[in-house]
């Protein structure tokens, strides 16, 4: 009994997850105004591309993946730069990705079970 306890002490004493090692890691500074504007311009261009697709006659099997690709790039740009996940502590990103990935997985399964697809 005491053996088990002391073994535990050794194992757990060595491992300290509350160690603020990550907090001490240098964070990159938030981006500058210039960088924000650059991202803003890219976002505007991507949106313009999306809207343009409405006026062009493209096969849906090409169009839909393209539109999703564009939306994804915009999504990621806003999250990484405007919400500065790229520059912040990784743990914030972990929580957010957890929710996002869970949502994507669960709802995809639901839609597949209904055989409801966009195309």
């Amino acid at each position, binding site marked *: 009994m005491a053996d088990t306890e002391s073994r535990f002490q050794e194992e757990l004493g060595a491992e300290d997850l*509350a160690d*603020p090692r*990550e*907090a*001490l890691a240098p964070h990159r500074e*938030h981006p*500058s*105004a210039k960088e*924000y*504007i650059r*991202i*803003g311009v890219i*976002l*505007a261009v991507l*949106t313009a591309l*999306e*809207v343009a*697709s*409405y006026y062009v006659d493209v096969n*849906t099997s090409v*169009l*839909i993946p393209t*539109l*999703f690709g*564009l*939306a994804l790039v*915009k*999504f990621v740009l*806003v*999250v990484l*730069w*405007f*919400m500065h996940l790229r520059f912040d*502590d990784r*743990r*914030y990103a972990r*929580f*957010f990705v*957890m*929710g*996002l990935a*869970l*949502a*994507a997985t*669960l*709802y995809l399964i*639901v*839609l597949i079970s*209904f055989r*409801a697809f*966009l195309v």
Partner: protein
Amino acid sequence: MALAIDKDGGSHGGEEHQTTTGLPSTKLAMWIFLASECLLFGALITTYVLYRGVSKTGPYPGDVFDIPYTSVSSFVLLASSLTMVMALVAAQKRDVVRMRLWLLTTALLGLTFVGGQVYEFTAFYHEGLSLSTNLFGTTFYVLTGFHGVHVTVGILMLLSLVGMSAADRLPDDAAFPVEMVGLYWHFVDIVWIIIFTVVYLIPTGPDVVR
């Protein structure tokens, strides 16, 4: 305002204290909240996608959507994200005047978006699309309406920030509250990025079975 309490009392009380992870609790809470919001909007978008093209009577999306109009709205909301980060940059530089200006601009752009949505809803309604006309009406109004409510809440928070700043109720370093409201605001923006694509841009052509 007569409510001037000392700033040290901390409108974001507790933030100065050391936390276990070294991360501010409010920001951690905000990210967990946003993660949970992903599942909320995910369910609404799923409902929309599931019922896409199954409406039995018109008006159908193609009958009512005005893509150029909504595109302008989308640009406006996107631009508001840019002005939001500009407010943050100003707040980090402790440039209170610019910060208030950018926050106000963001709120105005948000108001433009919501106003545009109200106009859009009214127009659709006059074209015969109500909540109970068909599944398109049901899912469209509820999904975009939920998003609109989120934008409205964001506008209220932005205006409150401006008001509190004007009443000298924000801490000298206002970057933190501005950043928190900003996180929420950008999240609402990324939800719209998805909605704009899924609801407006992906065509429901004649190949979709009705």
